[in-house]
């Protein structure tokens, strides 16, 4: 890097440059230390998971550990249903909150909604589970898919609210002004000018939030609980992939441990795919918007 003119001459200067190099090396070591566990986890999950992943695993019901075989089809369906319900409950609230914070939020309500959304997004997920447990499980007298969905919706809403606000803020102000100048109402401007322009990023935010709640386990342990059968209704205990991974991993059966790895592979593939697609879309749009 050094050209002849900038090459350090004195010993002291040389030491300073040496220290510069040394500390950059330390920073590189830090990066490696963070990336190693990631690669390692991916390696194990893919390596072990692939060996035990099968058509049977994806399409059949669990069987007793002593029999062998069986699959997690009910948990896969359960996860899709619980996460889907959480999205249906959470998306309208989250998007509306994001719209308010971005378009009309320059007031105490908008600011406190933003602040509390950020605080809620960092909240222990198990607390959301306790709230849903008290509100629904205790009242209904049994574990249910819907109580799990409520717990996940509590985690979903703040993330969607924040990402929606960020997405709408990227839309240039002159588009709103142009719309108002044409006599379009507030609702019309937001719904037919600002929201369509930001729609891609709003959906990206929803994907990121979905990836986050799809992997949540703690809030489901005592809400959706678990089941060995096909889902019988949203008011019944329901198996989900993350809870199954936990239950199978802490069981004493080798065969169940293997299934836990296969389940982890399914979950990780879903979560990482959602994230990768969402983040690459967001990055491209952000660059596009910045360029104009």
């Amino acid at each position, binding site marked *: 890097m050094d050209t002849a003119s900038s090459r350090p001459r004195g010993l002291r200067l040389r030491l300073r440059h040496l220290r*510069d190099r040394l500390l*950059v090396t330390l920073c590189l070591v830090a990066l490696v230390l963070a990336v190693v566990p990631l690669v390692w986890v991916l390696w194990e999950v893919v390596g072990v998971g692939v060996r035990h992943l099968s058509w049977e695993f994806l399409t059949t019901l669990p069987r007793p550990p002593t029999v062998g075989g069986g699959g997690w089809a009910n948990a896969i369906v359960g996860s899709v249903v619980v996460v889907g319900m959480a999205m249906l409950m959470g998306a309208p609230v989250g998007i509306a909150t994001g719209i308010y914070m971005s378009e009309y939020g320059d007031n105490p309500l908008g600011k406190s909604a933003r602040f509390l959304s950020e605080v809620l997004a960092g909240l222990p997920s198990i607390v959301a589970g*306790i*709230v849903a447990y008290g509100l629904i499980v205790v009242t209904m007298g049994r574990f249910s898919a819907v109580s799990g969905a409520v717990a996940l919706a509590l985690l979903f809403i703040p993330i969607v609210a924040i990402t929606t606000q960020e997405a709408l803020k990227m839309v240039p102000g002159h588009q709103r002004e142009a719309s108002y100048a044409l006599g379009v109402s*507030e609702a019309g401007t937001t719904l037919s000018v600002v929201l369509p322009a930001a729609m891609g990023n709003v959906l990206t935010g929803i994907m990121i939030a979905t990836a986050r709640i799809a992997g949540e386990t703690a809030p489901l342990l005592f809400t959706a609980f678990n089941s060995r059968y096909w889902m019988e209704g949203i008011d019944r205990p329901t198996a989900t992939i993350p809870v199954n991974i936990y239950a199978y991993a802490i069981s004493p059966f080798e065969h169940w441990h293997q299934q836990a790895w296969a389940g982890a592979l399914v979950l990780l593939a879903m979560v990482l795919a959602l*994230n990768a697609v969402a983040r690459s879309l967001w990055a491209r749009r952000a660059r596009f918007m910045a360029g104009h």
Partner: protein
Amino acid sequence: MSRSVAPLPGRDGRVRRHLRQRWFRYATGALALLVVTVVLLIVQQLWVQSRPTWSEWGLGFLVRTDWDPVQGEFGALPFIAGTLLTSLMALLIAVPISLGIAILLSEYAPRGLRDPLIFVVELLAAVPSVVFGLWGIFVLAPLVQRHVMPAVAGSPLGLLPFFGEPGPGYTLFTASLILAVMIIPIIASLSREALMAVPRDQKEAALALGATRWEATRHVILTYAKGGIFSAAVLGLGRALGETMATTMTIGNRVNLTWDYFQSGYSMTAIIANELREAASEIHVSSLVAIGLVLFLISFLLNSVGRLLLMRTNAPGT
């Protein structure tokens, strides 16, 4: 002249037109208000469900050390201690590593390399906690038991009272390691934002005075971004405290009041995850929820402080 002008709308008309123009603002505002009230709902739920415990032992519940569901004896101290010990150790490990990553990404990495690296660090944040837990049980814990704990015990660190005889693989130490891995992404990305917010001319001035890149980073950038880095650590601590599955699966789940990291312990989240679903007596449920309330209050406090500091330090013009 006045006859040709349409009659001024009355009060009613004005209200109606006002509503017609503003209904959307009020409708979305109502839902934003709902988000604000969710926080109150959480506090109310946790408080109502945990009342029996507070009326039985009051704040003394926080320092009681017994946990015996059969005898009806409950106390939170072993869990609070386990959570604090593991989270603080995780922070101690994660902050230097995160800071190194942040400096590398904001000051040194070439533009073409920066985005992919940020992407990788963010993927780390996307791995579900239960997957880390699975890896912890079957890969990390055996490794820690066979190699890492004996190595630490044999080094000068082993003289500290925090490291006793190497025990089984499922210990406070193993849980701390997993927590450290899990909070690195959030601390690294918030620190990076703090570093990038430093005005470039400050750094360029230092370089122009003959500072090496590292000297400019240390004396100018880090000094400038101190507040942002501190709040990143506070928010990271908040994450570590509330992390459930990876901790539950590696901490050992033994009610054990100790500061020896090489022993099994318990955390606030782990006891709730393990027992709430099967708790039979009212006082058992309420004691678990009481621990949840304490957890909520600590994490709410840390998150609020962290966010407020972040807003102040990252605000333009400061």
